[in-house]
């Protein structure tokens, strides 16, 4: 008798759960869409977003990098290559080459943390697909100049 009761109970409860399921999906069916069509519509990146690194700008449109190499040593994945020359003033160096290999970067941000002169910051770049490995090597100085031209 109990078995028979359970048999019918299961049918009724199961049927009701099916109706409930329908109610959820049909309810969602008439609600507005929440996705965006990516290449056509692009979302605003959050200011905190951490893309690959780039050089920060000084007031007089120069960069801060002194090619001390702290970031090179701190980087877990050997992403950074830096070269500098003795600056004309006589004291210290100025960076002339700053290469990053983005494909190996894990975006940990240690380089930004350790930089003694705050020469680095995170960029807002996120579309970084490329065809060759060489394309992932970015010359930050060239990028810096380009940005200056664009203003």
């Amino acid at each position: 008798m109990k078995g028979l009761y359970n048999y019918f109970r299961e049918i009724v409860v199961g049927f009701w759960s099916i109706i409930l399921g329908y109610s959820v999906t049909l309810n969602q069916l008439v609600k507005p869409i929440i996705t965006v069509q990516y290449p056509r519509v692009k979302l605003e990146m959050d200011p905190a977003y951490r893309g690959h690194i780039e050089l920060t700008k000084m007031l007089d449109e120069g960069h801060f990098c002194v090619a001390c190499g702290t970031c090179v040593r701190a980087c877990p994945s050997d992403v950074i290559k830096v070269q500098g020359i003795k600056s004309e003033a006589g004291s210290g160096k100025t960076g002339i080459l700053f290469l990053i290999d983005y494909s190996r970067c894990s975006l940990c941000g240690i380089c930004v943390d350790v930089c003694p002169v705050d020469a680095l910051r995170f960029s807002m770049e996120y579309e970084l697909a490329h065809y060759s490995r060489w394309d992932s090597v970015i010359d930050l100085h060239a990028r810096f100049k380009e940005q200056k031209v664009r203003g």
Partner: protein
Amino acid sequence: MDSSSVSKELVDKLAPIEVREGDYDRTGVHLDLALEPEKIRQAAELLLEAGCFLENLTAVDHVSHREMVYHFNEYSQPFRIVIRANLGPEDEIESIQDLCPAADWQERECFEMLGVKFTGHSDLRRLLLPEDADFFPLRKDFVNPPEAQAPEYHQETDDH
């Protein structure tokens, strides 16, 4: 059985080489026992019977010898007991796989990474590494093979 009484029994029965009260706030261990490798199995048996579970099993390569480290813990009242044993030159120790299935895969991993041979293990094949691997990558004398080195940074490795 309470874990403190187990620890007493352990100390009484096995006569450890060294007993240390662990500094829990710094090392996360309540009791630290150094044993002879032959007594490890007996100790594990005692602990498992008392309701402990095997938390972790690994080895440390001290270049001159390998040291086995077992962490046991308890569900009701955390009491972490670490038992350790210095292995001889053959790197052999008795398996505890049949006592505790949790040790099965951990022993296999320990074997392939550090070359510790677990005698009595029913299926001591390599687990994470390729089956034909003939090296022990977590030993201190292991050198990365040249093909495992990352490609030189500024080299142009254009694929097309």
